[in-house]
Every structure is written in structure tokens, then in C-alpha cells.
């Protein structure tokens, strides 16, 4: 709103400076918690237990990262997380593209109602399907594998992916599709050759959102996996707390290592991330 009301050069206006200072103070307060983890990861356990966690380290101590990264369990956790995140991200986006295309370009009687049912799927608490899913995967012997985590994340990603893809496809002119069909293209060719190449921004938004949510998830791997070599990194961190109970620095380093992929994705695709958050604005 204020962007179109530039401050005219009348007398001195104290507001911009005041607001800047307020924001700076708030920003420091907001950064403090994260800064604590970064600081701790660069200090020895001895320094921290001396009550020195929250000060700047005199020397950079990288032993915590060495310890965290040389732990074979951590390798396993990270690999497992990738093995879940990549297929589930790809799977949910693919299914969302298929459904979104039909809802945007081939609507039928009752398609709006069906669409609403799908989208409602992103609101309800996952606890409502925990027990039956556990029983289902238990019956086919897939508990304590990564499969249920992949499958459930794929299924639960369908609502948000369908919603965003449908809304994006709706902005692609119908004339484009009709022209291609007149030229003898099949619906599949229209989707893959005409519409999808135009949809890269929406696909990027979804890739970022889904990657972040699935990587960060805690509940599903907690329910579906048991043995240590099937755990994902977020569960792994909690498990390793016992091993590094007073090695606060190693815990800090672990937290940073586990957040690095999502932080990297966030920093590279910041614009897409915010866009997805506001467009989707719905998934929690």
C-alpha cells in the first residue's frame, strides 16, 4: 500500500527510521534462537557446559561437524530421507499434474465437487488415518520399510499438488489446447508438449514445498519404521540425543546438517517458496 505513497520531501519524517529500528530489533530477536544452534555447533562441550553457549566463539571449532558427519548412522538417516523425499515429491507432483489437468481443461458434471473433496484432504489431521494405515501396511508386511512413508506422502501430497496445478493450468489459454488438438495431437501430447513446458514455475513451487514438507516430516516415519537403519534424519536426530546427551555441540551440528538441504532449497528458491506458501496457503 505505502509503495505508491512515497514520502514527499516536506519536513523530517521520523517514521521510516523508527520502523527500521523496530524491525531490526525484532529481526535480532527472531534470529537469536537459530543463532544459538549455529554458535553451539562451533564450540567444544567444555565451553558450553561452562555456561558459554550464547557468546561468540573465540576460535572456530569444527570437531562437532566432524563427529556428526563421520557417524555412519547419520549417513544412513540422510540416505533414507532422500530415498523417501525424492520419489514422494516426484510422485505427488505427477499425480497432481494429471488430476489438475482434468479439473482445469476437461471438466465434467460433478468435477467441482470431486475437486473440493480432494482439496479438503489437506485440512484434516493425519491422526485420523494413522491406525488404519498402520494396520494396512502391517498386513502386507511393509512396516519397518520406507515404502509406507513414500506411499503415504505421495497420497497426502495429491491435494496441494492438484490445487496448485489446476489453478495454474486454468491460466493457460484453452485456444492453445484446441489448436493442438485440431493439429491432431492427443490429450497426452497436449499435456506433455504444450501445457507442461509452460508450467515450470508452478512445478518449481510444488517441488520446493513438497521437498521441504517431506524432508522435515516426523510423524509418518515415526509410525511406520522401527529399526535404526530405516529411520529418517528427523527421527535419527531424536535417537542420537541419547548418544550425545551432553555433547550439545554435536547436537547443534546435527541439527544444522539435517536442515541444510531445506535451507539450501529455501535460499535458492526463496521467491517460489513464498509464492507457494501464499498460493497454497493452506497446507500445514
Amino acid at each position, binding site marked *: 500500500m505505502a509503495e505508491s*505513497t512515497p514520502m514527499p520531501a516536506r519536513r523530517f519524517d521520523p517514521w521510516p527510521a523508527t520502523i527500521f529500528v523496530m524491525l531490526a530489533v525484532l529481526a535480532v530477536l*527472531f534470529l537469536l534462537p537459530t543463532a544459538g544452534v549455529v554458535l553451539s555447533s562451533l564450540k567444544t562441550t567444555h565451553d558450553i557446559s561452562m555456561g558459554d553457549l550464547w557468546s561468540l566463539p573465540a576460535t572456530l571449532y569444527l570437531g562437532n561437524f566432524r563427529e556428526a558427519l563421520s557417524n555412519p548412522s547419520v549417513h544412513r538417516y540422510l540416505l533414507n530421507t532422500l530415498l523417501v523425499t525424492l520419489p514422494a515429491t516426484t510422485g505427488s507432483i505427477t499425480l497432481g499434474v494429471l488430476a489438475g489437468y482434468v479439473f482445469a481443461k476437461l471438466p465434467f458434471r460433478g468435477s467441482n465437487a470431486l475437486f473440493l473433496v480432494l482439496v479438503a484432504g489437506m485440512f484434516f489431521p493425519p491422526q485420523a488415518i494413522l491406525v488404519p494405515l498402520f*494396520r494396512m501396511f502391517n498386513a502386507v508386511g511393509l512396516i519397518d520399510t520406507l515404502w509406507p512413508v513414500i506411499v503415504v506422502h505421495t497420497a497426502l501430497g495429491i491435494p496441494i499438488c492438484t490445487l496448485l496445478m489446476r489453478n495454474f493450468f486454468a491460466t493457460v489459454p484453452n485456444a492453445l489446447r484446441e489448436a493442438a488438438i485440431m493439429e491432431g495431437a492427443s490429450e497426452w501430447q497436449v499435456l506433455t508438449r504444450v501445457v507442461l513446458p509452460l508450467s515450470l514455475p508452478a512445478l518449481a513451487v510444488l517441488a520446493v514445498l513438497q521437498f521441504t514438507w517431506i524432508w522435515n516430516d516426523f510423524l509418518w516415519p515415526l509410525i511406520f519404521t522401527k529399526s535404526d537403519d530405516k529411520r529418517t534424519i528427523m527421527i535419527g536426530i531424536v535417537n542420537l540425543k541419547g548418544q550425545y546427551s551432553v555433547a550439545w555441540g554435536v547436537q547443534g551440528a546435527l541439527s544444522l546438517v539435517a536442515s541444510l538441504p531445506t535451507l539450501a532449497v529455501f535460499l535458492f528458491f526463496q521467491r517460489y517458496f513464498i509464492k507457494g506458501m501464499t498460493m497454497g496457503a493452506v497446507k500445514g
Partner: protein
Amino acid sequence: MNRQNRIWRTALLAAPLAVFGLFVVWPLMSSFYYSFTNWNGFNPNYDFVGFANFGKIVTDRLFLNATINTAIWMVAAIVLPTALGLGLALLLDRKLPGARFFKSVFYLPICLSAVIVGQIWIWIYQPDWGLLNTVLRHVTGAEHNWAWLARPNTALWSVIVAWSWQQTGLSMVIYLAGLTGIPGDLLEVCEIEGASPWQRLRRVVLPLLTPSTVVVVALSVINSLKGFDILYIMTGGGPFNSSDTLAMHMYNESFAKFRMGYGSAISVVLFLIAMVVIGLYFRQLRKVDRIYG
């Protein structure tokens, strides 16, 4: 042509609907079914117990406790991140040096996982060297080693603060998007007409932000019904169930005590609450759509 469309529709919708049906809709239906049984999670046999699980809910002291905590959590989760996010959005919605940097700082916590957020705040609340007690010691000069997360009267609120820290960025982003939709000329007219900044905010900006508020509030409610990970990490629902929520209670009954039938009954109640909220949200959204088109 029409026939072909029908074939394509079926072909394209088959996979997404099958996956969604099998792994979301069907389990949801089954939850209702299991809520009438006493299944324990392992034994292939179970009995129908009718409404016994729901009868137990009514008398379960822990369920009542979890409901109250969920309500507290919900109200706090609506008020704190929404107010903070709105404030930040109003401050940031102007040409400022470093605006991009500020925005990044405020929404950075959203992309951290609940586990990491929990970890971070456990350290802040740590009794001996945690940031909070350290600051209190310096400010008051007295000894402070209150164990924030281990005391029944501060545990829930301590988690709520951590949760608000993470969620504020989300409401800020939604409000910022809403603010870009308010025409600048409108505010200029108000200024020319002599409206004070406070009047402009109260009478013009806030009413025009209603659609964003609906989204933010609905999200807060829904996310607070899901509130599980961060509690599991920070308090596990304790001490003495003082920070237990419905989602947490459901997990404990089903997967710690293996009363899956009873757990299903709790999840059915949770689902019904969520449905009411979603229904209200959609209705409100339609009303907002009609007014603000």
C-alpha cells in the same frame, strides 16, 4: 470428441484418484469402523464394542485435559502468530532498506522442521545455561533456574511460544500478499480527507484484509489440531500430561498403550472437529468472495 474426452478423463484421473482413495479416503472410513472395536494393534482378532470407546472418551479425564489444552493451544495459535504476523506485514509493507532481508529472517523458521525448532527452544528453556534464564539472571541479578519445560504450569505455554515463533512468518507472508491488493490511491484519498493513520488502519486496511485473516485463522486452527511433532519433541505431552493435546493423546493411546480401537475413537472426534472448522472456513471464504469478489 465427447467420447474421447471421457476416455482421457478416466485415464488421467485413474491414478491420482486410486492412490488418494486407497491411502486417504479408505483409511478415513476405516477409522470410523475401528473406533467401534477393541483392536490392540497386533492381535488379528478383535471384538465389536459398540459405542464403548466413545463412552470412555466422555469419562476419560486425560481426554478432557487434552481437549482443554488443545483449546488453549488453538486460541493462542490464532492470537499470537496472527497478531505478530499482521504487525510485521504492516511494518514491512513500504519501501525500506533491507526489506527483503527482514522478510527472509521472519519466514526462515517456516522451513525448519518441528524437530529442529523443538531442539532450538529446548536450549533456550534449558534451566542452567539456557538463553531465557541467562537473560533473566542478568536483568534481575537474582538466581534463575526455572525448568520451563519440566514444570506443569509453564510447559504448554513454553511450547506455544516456540510454535508461534515458527508460524509467524506464514501469517506475515499471507498478510503481505493481502496488502499488495489494497490500492494506494484509496489510502491517499483517506489521507487527504484527514483520516489519521490509526483510522486508516482500523477503518480501511483491516476490513480490506478480511480475506487474508480468514485464511490465516483457518490455517492456525487446522495446524493447531495437527499440533504433534513439536510437543512430542519438547515435552512429550508432559509433565503430568500438562501439555497433552488431542493429537498427542491419540498417539499415546494408539501407539504407546496400543489401544488402537480407543485411539481410533479419539481420531474420529478430532476429525469431526476439523470438519466443522473446515466447513466454517469454506462458508466464510464464500461470503468473503461474494463481498470482495
